[in-house]
């Protein structure tokens, strides 16, 4: 038995990544294969670890906010929003309505931008070249709005603890309205390319099936959980900002496969447009900053966990104060990290080519997985 060599066994160990375009960053997956079939997998992560949580302990509350942008760098606005809200909850600060509506508009635009990037690259991974050009075209429009608002396109640092740094620029409402008017038509365009496309359906239907029970057991949240048929969205279940004042639906899938998760995200983009339209209706002139002292110094011995529905799932911040200007501990609950944990469950029994589809469908950003 000890003499058994590589040739006697059908098992083959293949490394995928870290330098692999389909792993969306520096993810290394060790695959155990029997021919083309996957017997098991192991993720090796940490290539992008920067010790964000350690940095937080050595910065003041306000200084740490820009660092959160560098975690999920394709959805910086939502990252910053989660952190600001967590500290605001710790301090017990109420936001003025204008700040809330603005935050919601920008966060939903960011959700669309994140989903667009996902859709383009996911389709590209599966061999569809066109969608990536289409989605980046619309994503560009959103990034232009961000740039006009705060000067940055990716690492926006759009919000401050207690409100907004900048009031909206003059043409903001026109720009966003224009986007909302033409964007649903563009979603139809993507759907024309993919939804009933035979190759797309064959590559995605029945691939990477995850049942709702397994998803919950593994801590999976966001569109991946909803694709498995679980009707759960933090914006509905435990509303933050003013999400309880807007109407929107929570799309869910039935089969928990890659195709359903695709449909869920497409629908989410439509719902985001719906939310943005309602926010624009309610947007009125007013103050943009709540009552926050110049020096943020929460009392000692208090702690708060706050989570929001990020584009990829539940993004949580657990902030502990020791009464100084630096947080004693900031724990970031990254959605990608926990969603990636389900990869092994999803790839087993599939072909190597499907692994690419499944990594894509989880929608991970390694900056957030590794922190």
């Amino acid at each position, binding site marked *: 038995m000890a003499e058994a060599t590589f040739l006697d066994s059908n098992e083959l160990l293949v490394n995928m990544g870290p330098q692999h375009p389909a792993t969306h960053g520096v993810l290394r997956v060790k695959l155990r294969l029997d021919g083309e079939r996957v017997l098991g997998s192991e993720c090796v*992560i*940490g290539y992008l*670890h920067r*010790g964000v*949580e*350690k*940095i937080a*302990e*050595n910065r003041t509350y306000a200084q740490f906010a820009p660092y959160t942008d560098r975690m999920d760098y394709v959805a910086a606005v939502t990252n910053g929003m989660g952190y600001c809200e967590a500290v605001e*909850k*710790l301090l*017990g600060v109420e936001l003025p309505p204008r700040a809330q509506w603005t935050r919601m508009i920008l966060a939903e635009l960011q959700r669309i931008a994140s989903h667009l990037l996902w859709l383009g690259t996911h389709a590209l991974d599966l061999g569809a070249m066109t969608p990536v050009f289409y989605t980046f075209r619309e994503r560009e429009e959103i990034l232009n709005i961000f740039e006009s608002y705060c000067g940055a396109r990716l690492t926006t640092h759009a919000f401050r603890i207690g409100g907004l740094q900048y009031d909206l620029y003059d043409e903001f409402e026109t720009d966003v309205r224009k986007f909302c008017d033409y964007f649903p038509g563009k979603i139809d365009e993507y759907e024309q390319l993919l939804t009933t496309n035979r190759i797309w359906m064959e590559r995605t239907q029945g691939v990477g099936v995850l049942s709702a029970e397994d998803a*919950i*057991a*593994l*801590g999976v*949240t966001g569109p991946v959980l909803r694709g498995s048929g*679980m009707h*759960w969205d933090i914006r509905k*279940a*435990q509303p933050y900002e003013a999400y309880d004042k807007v109407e929107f639906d929570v799309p869910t899938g039935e089969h928990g496969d890659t195709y359903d998760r695709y449909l869920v995200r497409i629908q989410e983009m439509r719902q985001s447009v719906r939310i943005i339209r309602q926010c624009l209706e309610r947007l009125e002139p007013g103050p943009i900053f709540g009552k926050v002292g110049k020096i943020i110094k*929460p*009392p000692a*011995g*208090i*702690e*708060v*966990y706050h*989570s929001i529905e990020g584009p990829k799932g*539940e993004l*949580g911040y*657990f902030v*502990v104060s020791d009464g100084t200007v630096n947080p*004693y*501990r900031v*724990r970031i*609950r990254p959605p990608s*990290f*926990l969603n990636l*944990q389900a990869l092994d469950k999803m790839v087993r029994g599939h072909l190597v080519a499907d692994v690419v589809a499944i990594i894509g469908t989880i929608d991970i950003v390694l900056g957030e997985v*590794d*922190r």
Partner: protein
Amino acid sequence: MTDEPKSPPNGGTSDKPVQRAAPAGPVTSPQKPAATSPPKPTPKPIVKPEPWASPLLEALQERFPGAISDALIFRGQAFFTVQKERLIQVAEFLKSEGGGSYCLLTDETVVDYPKREKRFEIIYQLYSFERNDRLRMKVLAGEAETVPSVTAVWPAANWLEREIYDMFGVVFEGHPELKRILLPEDWTGHPLRKDYDILRQDPEWVRANLKIESGQ
């Protein structure tokens, strides 16, 4: 200045003076304008966790007498500390229907208090879909102590506990494969501990693997 502390009818320590001052009502009323000028009373309410009371807590205390302590609530978020020895039983109960079906382990992490006798506070963030409720469970552990792994109850704990082991060096008993997850496997030290300086690193690892002298 000497009058001012008397005038604001605060709670807590000033209970008795207020009762005594009741007959001398006219004396306090002229002071009112003076009392309104400092706008201090608004930020004054002491923010700290309050005792938590709920049917779930009662059920827990009844089922596990003496195992639950420090049940508090702050900003609507309830949390309690559970005895390490009873952790798995409490976790199983909370996951069961009778315990509220807290079937989603949202997060598991550690806060390090090096000066305390039991320095590690392991924190479990739980969520129940049925109740739409969050709950925070804590377990205390000392430097050399192991903590029972909850991977059998909530499989999501697998990577979370590996990360804790990596960052804090807390060892989880019964974990299927406890090894580092973010840092290289042969790294020494646990960076998120409070006594690990932000500029510190493992110079030997850096020299051996990156072929450079430590850049810090």
